[in-house]
Structures are given as structure tokens and as C-alpha cells.
């Protein structure tokens, strides 16, 4: 007997989830309060599409700016801290101890300082994404094979040439990993902060509708967020596939699942 391919099974599970999502509330197995039927949720999403679109726009804006901060600063500082041996030995242990702290406890501080508008979300999500990107870039910079530099030196490369023609191309897989990580985390950071204290954004819609026990609208917002994460993930995978030539360098940037996943992904 041959088992179906794992991929097929996954797809079947996906379909099953959708079917159950519709059937379970309609059949009365679980109250509609807990989980409204899928069709009802989608219907409500369509009816209120203007509201959701406006909220999504706010969320996207926050994500974009926060991503710029988290990835930009993360990659830059990560390269410097990781690349300069003295700095690395000095700062890296400090940073990796700090990352054990749940950053969400800083959110009340940010709301007190920046208000409940987009600024606090951007700052929070920026910090949220910054640490993992910085740490993974710092780690990745070190995997640039010493041999590459040695070979280039043996060919008489000057320092600017070393940086431009060896270090930078060799860092691209690391940078891409940082971007993938940072992006996913800033989305998480924005959503969490919008759910907590906010006046706008998709996360806010989740909270607002929950307090009015409007389950279909809560789930509609959840669907939008899920769609956002999935689309981002697909987009990044697409880019990663295109840059395979650098990836197959073999000197991987990731060193195992537990190391590759930052705590911030728990949110």
C-alpha cells in the first residue's frame, strides 16, 4: 500500500480545516460565538470591505516603516558587531542575553511615550524585529569563509576590493535571511501592538469586535492578518528562489531550527 505524498496530505488537511470551519458551527457542534461559519465570516468581510481595507492600509504602513528600521538597523549593526572581532566579543553576549526578555513588556512604555497612534506601533515593532535580525546577521557574517578572504588576498586584493568584491557578495544569503526574519517579526510586532492598545489597524479591529462579541468580524480580521502573513511569506520565498545561486554557497547562514528561530516569533 502506498501512502499519498506528504504534499497531498497537507493540502487535504488544509481543505479539511476549511470544511470543518464551515461545518462545525453550522451543525451546532460548537456555538457560533466560538467560531462562526467560514462563509458568514467571508460575507461580513466583504460587506465591511471598506473598513477592513482602511485598517489594512494603516497596518501596512506601520509594517513598512518598522521593517525599514528593524532590517536596516539590524543588518547594519549586525554586520558591524559581527564583523569586528573586538566589538563582537564585547557586545554579542550582552545582546543575546537581552533577547531572553519578552519585548512586549516594553509596549506600555512606548504607548506612554508615543501615544496610541502609529508611532508607538512602529517603534515597538521596529525594536521587536531589530534584535533577531541583528543577531542573525552578526552570526551570519562570521560564516563568510575565511578562505574566500585568504584567496582574495593571495590575488593581491586591496581592502576596498576585499569588501566590495568578497565580503558583500558573500553576505547576501545572510542579509536575505535577516530580511525574511525581520519582515515576519515586524508583522507580528505590529499586530500584537495593534491588538493591545490602539485606535486603528487590523489588530485593533480584532480587539474592538471581540469586546462587542461580534465573532464574524473578529474572524474576518483574523483572516486578513493570516492572508498578510502568508502573502509576505510567499513573496520572500519567491525572492529566495531567485537568488539560489548565492544560497548554494553551502556555507549556510542558519545553524539549526532552534537557533534560527527568535523568541519574538512566539507572539
Amino acid at each position, binding site marked *: 500500500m502506498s*501512502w499519498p505524498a*506528504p504534499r497531498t*496530505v*497537507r493540502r487535504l*488537511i488544509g481543505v479539511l480545516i476549511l470544511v470543518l470551519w464551515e461545518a462545525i458551527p453550522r451543525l451546532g457542534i460548537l456555538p457560533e*460565538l*466560538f*467560531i462562526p461559519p467560514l462563509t458568514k465570516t467571508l460575507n461580513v468581510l466583504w460587506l465591511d470591505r471598506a473598513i477592513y481595507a482602511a485598517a489594512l492600509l494603516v497596518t501596512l504602513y506601520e509594517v513598512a516603516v518598522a521593517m525599514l528600521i528593524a532590517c536596516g538597523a539590524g543588518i547594519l549593526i549586525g554586520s558591524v558587531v559581527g564583523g569586528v572581532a*573586538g566589538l563582537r*566579543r*564585547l557586545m554579542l553576549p*550582552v545582546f543575546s*542575553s*537581552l*533577547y*531572553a*526578555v*519578552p*519585548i*512586549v*513588556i*516594553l*509596549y*506600555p*512604555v512606548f*504607548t*506612554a*511615550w508615543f501615544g496610541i497612534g502609529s508611532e508607538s506601533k512602529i517603534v515597538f515593532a521596529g525594536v521587536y524585529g531589530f534584535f533577531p535580525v541583528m543577531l542573525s546577521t552578526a552570526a551570519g557574517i562570521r560564516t563568510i569563509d575565511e578562505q574566500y578572504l585568504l584567496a582574495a588576498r593571495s590575488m593581491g586584493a586591496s581592502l576596498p576590493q576585499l569588501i566590495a568584491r568578497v565580503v558583500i557578495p558573500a553576505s547576501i544569503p545572510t542579509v536575505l535571511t535577516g530580511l525574511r526574519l525581520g519582515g*515576519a517579526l515586524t*508583522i*507580528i510586532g505590529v*499586530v*500584537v501592538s495593534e*491588538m*493591545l*492598545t490602539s485606535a486603528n489597524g487590523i*489588530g485593533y479591529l*480584532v*480587539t474592538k469586535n*471581540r469586546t462587542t462579541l461580534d*465573532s464574524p468580524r*473578529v474572524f474576518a*480580521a*483574523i483572516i486578513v*492578518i*493570516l492572508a498578510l*502573513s*502568508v502573502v*509576505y*511569506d510567499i513573496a520572500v520565498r519567491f525572492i529566495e528562489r531567485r537568488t539560489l545561486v548565492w544560497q548554494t554557497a553551502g556555507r549556510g547562514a542558519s545553524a*539549526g*531550527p*532552534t537557533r534560527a*528561530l527568535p*523568541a*519574538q*516569533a*512566539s*507572539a
Partner: protein
Amino acid sequence: MRGGALVLVRLALLAAVLLLWEGLPRSGIVNPMLLPPLSDVLDALVVILGRPDVHHALGITAAEVVVAFAIAVPLGTALGVLSAENEYFGEIFRPMLFYVFSIPKSIFLPMFILVFGIGFPQKVAYAAFSTVFIVIMSASAAVESVKAEHLLVARSYGATRQQILRRVYLPSMLPILLEALRISMIFNFTGVMIAEMYASRVGIGRLIADWGENFEMAKLLAGVILLAAAAMAFNEAVRSLEARCSTWRA
């Protein structure tokens, strides 16, 4: 730069940060309403550490953390080991697992609230939910890390399943399991904090959120320092344990 010098430089940096924290608000460069001077925050820390309601809140939070962990770890380990031992099962679920990590799990909080209401079970359930996935992944990775060759050698010497478990799997997996424990706890603690800050009447997360809303900045920052210290202490404790078990690793 050698070890001793490194520590000194770090201490110096810390001292500089602390001095700024004290000086900037006091001199008025930074609004002391927003960032109280360090001494005020430390005073507040002493105060809150003495308050019974804070003790109560800390107790509740600690309980949530422990119970959630106690649920997530065995459950996740079982699923993780299963996923590593059974290739088919693993093949199906591994990609799904990776997806899960890029989804904001906090969006499921409302569901937990709808089902459990607001209270201890809801927070524990949510925290366990946020933690279980990383435990699954770590356990799976730990099992896979046991080198096939080591197993082959043991089997060729006629070791029983029990002996293989004790003498090959366990020592091989121990450092990784400790690291997994450490990281899972970070996820767990984060989950508990989010649940408390989102919808809870009690717990330290709730307290600091309230202090924030009421602009009681000194207490808020004191609470943040307290929690940060606790998190880091646990982290370093497990890390040193890991280091002691890892002497044989390359």
C-alpha cells in the same frame, strides 16, 4: 582584548547608561514625566517589591508560566519525537510548522477568550499554545541530532532499546534539550505576558499595563526591570547548565 578587560568595558558601558538614565531626566533634557530618573525607578522597585498585591500578581504570573510550560513541554516533546521518528508524519508537518512561526499567534487570543473566558485557564491555554510549536521543533531536532552512526554502533553491539535510549540518545540530546528548554521558556513567558496584557484582571503583565495607562512611569519601568531581570536570570542559569553538559560538543 582579554576576558577581564571585556568585563570591565561592559561594566563601564553599563555605568555610562545608568548615569545617563539618572542625569538626562534630572537635568530636564529628557522629560522626567516620561522617563523618571533611575533613582526614582529604583525607589519604585523597592516599593513594589514590598507590596502584597504585587506579590499576588507575581505569584499568579509565575503559576501561569509554570503550568503552561508543564503542558507544552511534554505535549510538544511527544509530537516532536513522533515527527522525527516517523518520517512520513514529519514530512507532512514540518513545512506547516515553519508557516506557523511566521503567523502572529496572538490573533488566536480572542478565540481562547471566547472559549475559556477571561481567567487563568485562558492564559495558560494561550501560553501553552504559543510554546508548543517551538517545543515540537526542538524535540524533533534533538532526536535528529543523534548521529545515525552512534546508533548503528550501539545496535551492532547488541544494545537493547532501553540501553540505547539511556546511553546514546540521552547524553547526545541533553545539551540540545537544555537549549530547547531555555528557548521554549522565552516563548512561554512572552505568551503569558501577551495574554495578561491583552485581557486579564490579574497578573504582573496586567499590572504594568495599568501603570502604563496611568502614566505611573516609575512603577512601570521598575516592573519592566524586574521582569527583565527574572527572564535573564533564568536564561543564564540554563545556559550555564547547557555549557556544562556541552563540553564534548565541537
